[in-house]
């Protein structure tokens, strides 16, 4: 096993598996978040958020998700260092745009920017909801729960800067996924002549859905309120 984890393909296997796990998480995250813009009373979102916090299955998956993030981030820096070492003397003149996309060459840059966004995002919401307890309580259908809707809507309605940060976060994530999605399948060997282009197209569509889906939420609050 240790041999597998130090082999280049073994390491990338870890990147792919953790990446695809995060891809699944994003789909769930976006579905819940879109409730923010479909019900201005906030009830729907609050019920969904409450369900996520109290559901035992989600509670079990949460630490796993944290681990997924950590592995994906730490491994990426480790891998990039290995790859950087493979070319000690750099080229004087490079013309890489002819042969590959900027996104595919700068996954670490995009990932690092997404990480910065992720930290801001955690401080804004997750930290407040779970630890500092700065969220007001409300009662919906006789059940006490945190008013997560007001927390999110409050931030997006009042701060244009945060709106911009969240739109940028969504777009950066989209670019990261536009290469990462199909690349993960390719690394796992789940690709061939027919499926490579199909996966690339599915990955692009998924990237657009994620980017637009997440960006539209702060914009909705900014424009409507």
């Amino acid at each position, binding site marked *: 096993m240790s041999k597998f984890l130090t082999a280049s*393909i073994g390491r990338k296997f870890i990147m792919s598996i953790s990446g695809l796990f995060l891809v699944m998480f994003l789909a769930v995250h976006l579905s819940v978040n879109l409730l923010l813009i479909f019900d201005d009373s906030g009830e729907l979102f609050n019920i969904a958020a409450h369900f996520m916090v109290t559901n035992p299955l989600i509670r079990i998956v949460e630490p796993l998700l944290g681990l997924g993030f950590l592995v994906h981030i730490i491994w990426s820096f480790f891998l990039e260092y290995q*790859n*950087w070492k*493979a070319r000690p003397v750099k080229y004087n003149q490079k013309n890489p745009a002819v042969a590959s996309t900027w996104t595919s060459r700068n*996954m670490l840059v995009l990932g690092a920017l997404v990480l910065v966004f992720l930290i801001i995002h955690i401080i804004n919401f997750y930290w407040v909801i779970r630890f500092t307890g700065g969220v007001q309580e409300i009662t919906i259908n006789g059940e006490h729960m945190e008013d997560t809707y007001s927390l999110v809507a409050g931030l997006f309605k009042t701060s244009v800067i945060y709106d911009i940060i969240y739109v940028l976060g969504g777009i950066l994530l989209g670019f990261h996924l536009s290469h990462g999605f199909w690349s993960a399948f390719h690394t796992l060997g789940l690709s061939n002549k027919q499926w490579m282009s199909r996966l690339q197209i599915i990955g692009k569509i998924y990237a657009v859905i994620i980017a637009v889906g997440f960006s539209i939420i702060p914009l909705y609050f900014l424009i409507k309120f």
Partner: protein
Amino acid sequence: MADKILKKLNIKVWRQNNAQDKGRFETYTIENISTGSSFLEMLDILNNNLIEEGKDPIAFDHDCREGICGTCSLFINGRAHGPDTEVTTCQLHMRKFKDGETITIEPWRAAAFPVIKDLVVDRTAFEKILQAGGYISVNTGGVPDANAIPISHEDAEESMDAASCIGCGACVAACKNSSAMLFVSAKVAHLAKLPQGKVEAKSRARKMVAKMDELGFGGCTNTGACEVECPKSISITNIARLNREYLTARFSE
């Protein structure tokens, strides 16, 4: 119709006396180059001039000059084998350049391909990867009847496509990670597709990848630059196959 003449070119080229030397760029001027001449012929002319001036000619690799031996290398104007597609440097023509242009020539850059002199790099690493498993050791017996082992047309074609790799190293040179995955995957795929090669497919993938890692090549991030710069257009779908072979080999152990 006579070929046009490039009146003047500036050749900015990497000069390095030996493996230990730090190396530097030097710029030479060359005049009256026919657009019909190949890139290597242009270098031959430049070297003639240098010899006449009593200077050390530029060392570069070349052999068949037919685009099939994989010997010529050169990173020209920021691209492996220069500004043409699906060609080796010997098949690159001067018509791809403009009069008065400065052409930058560098050797392949990779930890696994150390520079020996000027533009010549040591590509023994590829041989070592092949020696680690890029062969068939099963006993195939005498010459069988041509139709004794049926192979589908598709498999034969895919295998031949992968086998067209000439081991030039452009994939490593073009890759931002200096990864040899396209080379290794072509060798693994071309054998794994055929009945005789299938027998050792798993151990072959494992051994060749282990050797590739040991020699200091980087990992693959699927940018696809190798496929674009490959003179034989070897597809990166071979890399997916190598990943598949390697992972199944690892998990079945």
